[in-house]
């Protein structure tokens, strides 16, 4: 599987040399969604927390950029991105402290509800642009002391920024999962009660995982807003939360590369199904075949696409010979 992954990343790295502008933008968007999905997998696949409201943090990252962007000038990425991460992390801390008091189905419902709360807040709030959303007229500027390492307005540059983020997030999460902390959350997923009996203050670790996942989602949301220069309450919406959860589950829970596959598969499927040239009048109803695909995938592919390649138990701590 590793070989395939490296080959895939290699292909992605080389794509801008041959790719069309449209697909360059699409792939960049998919890579950001993959980062969003990986952050959710940290919760779902590795800590055992099924969140249906992860879009809350995606949206917060996006809206923070919007609020920090002056009307016709660029915000500095070196200032605004850390702020976005900070805001998202604090929000995750507060929301997590409340929702982590529940578990199982309650947790699913409650995470959804909090994301909805933000959604309605965004719709009602004039400062945030209401239901029409708001524009970011100038993309964040990467200038540092006169030197501009990359220009987010340039499609190729943006693509590589997204790719670097993808690789970086994957590497970060792999490292974290190998760490002392990582082994703890894997233990929590495997047998939470025993972890408590062994002496671990389980709540603290779940909260830390929740905050980390939220912060990463915030970065993805920030860049997504930067990519198209637009934010709307839909960023907080349950469709966004549902869609990223689908990517994780269909791609393969608890694998980290599964969500990447899921992001590509679902977005490309959506792109294909809504293509007017292929489906003529029916293309507007692309959600129907998409829904059918999801239903059939659950019935026939219980481990997701990533699960097809991965035999044996899911998400276990590394052993000495990994």
């Amino acid at each position, binding site marked *: 599987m590793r070989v395939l992954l490296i080959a895939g990343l290699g292909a992605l790295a080389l794509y801008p040399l041959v790719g069309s502008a449209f697909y360059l933008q699409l792939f960049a968007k998919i890579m950001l969604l993959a980062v969003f999905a990986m952050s959710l997998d940290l919760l779902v696949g590795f800590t055992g927390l099924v969140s*249906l409201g992860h879009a809350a943090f995606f949206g917060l990252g996006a809206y923070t950029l919007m609020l920090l962007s002056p009307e016709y000038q660029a915000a500095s990425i070196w200032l605004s991105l850390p702020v976005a991460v900070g805001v998202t992390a604090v929000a995750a801390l507060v929301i997590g402290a409340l929702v982590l008091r529940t578990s199982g189905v309650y947790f699913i419902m409650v995470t959804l509800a909090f994301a909805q*709360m933000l959604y309605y807040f965004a719709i009602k709030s004039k400062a945030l642009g209401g239901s029409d959303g708001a524009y970011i007229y100038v993309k964040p500027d990467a200038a540092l002391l006169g030197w501009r390492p990359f220009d987010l307005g340039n499609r190729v540059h943006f693509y590589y920024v997204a790719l670097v983020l993808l690789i970086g997030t994957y590497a970060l999460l792999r490292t974290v999962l190998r760490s002392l902390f990582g082994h703890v959350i894997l233990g929590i997923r495997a047998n939470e009660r025993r972890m408590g009996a062994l002496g671990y203050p389980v709540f603290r670790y779940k909260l830390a995982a929740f905050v980390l996942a939220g912060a990463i989602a915030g970065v993805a949301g920030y860049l997504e807003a930067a990519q198209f220069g637009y934010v709307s309450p839909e960023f907080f919406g349950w469709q966004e939360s549902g869609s990223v959860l689908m990517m994780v589950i269909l791609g393969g829970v608890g694998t980290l590369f599964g969500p990447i596959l899921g992001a590509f598969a679902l977005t490309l499927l959506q792109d294909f199904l809504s293509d007017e040239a292929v489906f003529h009048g029916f293309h507007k109803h692309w959600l129907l075949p998409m829904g059918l695909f999801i239903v059939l995938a659950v019935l026939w592919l219980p481990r997701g696409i990533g699960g097809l390649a991965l035999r044996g138990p899911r998400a276990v701590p590394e052993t000495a010979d990994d």
Partner: protein
Amino acid sequence: MADGYTFLIQILNGVQYGLLLFLVASGLTLVFGIMGVINLAHGSFYMMGAYLAFSLMELVGNLWLAILLGIPLSIAIGLALEALLFRRLYRRDHLDQVLLTYGLILIMEEVRSLLAGDDVHGIEVPKLLDFSIRLTDTLAYPVYRLVMSGICLGVAALMALVIQRTRLGMTIRAGADNREMVQLLGIDIGLVYRMVFAAGVALAALAGMIAAPVASVYPGMGNQILIISFVVVVIGGIGSIKGAFLGSLLIGLADTFGQVLAPEIAGVTVYMLMAAVLLWRPAGLFGRA
């Protein structure tokens, strides 16, 4: 005295909304409490009811007739879905249930779009009930809303009766606690599940039908009520009808008064209430932890 009547109107509205919510939320909590299935598409049944009412009205011209025809139709669709899909979810984990029912929402939304379009529709209040009770010179309260509340209360009473007083109800309560035991007693648990599921669908569809003249019929109506129903279930406790009843009334009143007293944060009051309950009772008011 006008203030008193305004207050009364808000209370009546809150109770009416709450009772309607109860119909939907009770189905959700029953299906989860007894079969262990989380059904995200539950709101779609509400939508289905409303659209059925609209379509049948075009045929028969009478809301009550439409409801009379629509309920069996809804139950039939529900049983078909149970046989096709939900039956396979009983043994699956929550993740799979969430995913499959999410896909089902998408399918049902698009089928609705194909069959009935994306327009917003209104349904006329039945002529017999299309009048208001005069309270003051300027204030009046629509009788239809009172009838809605009445119907919901009647259904709630019927539910309580069935669950507490009948053998079926006893079986349902037993099945919720101990599936294997019930099967050992020779009772067909599959039949019980089908009946509970059908009841859930019927309740949600009925709610959609009677609400249609007041709340109109529009795409996305299912998802809105689903999420609020989730909040009700969290507050009331999964599997508890009592909890769903109390939770629904609480939410109904909170939302109504919230709209009136603080419209800027109107939608948010419901979630703040949920957060407050979570801090105090993470398993809901009547939930078993």
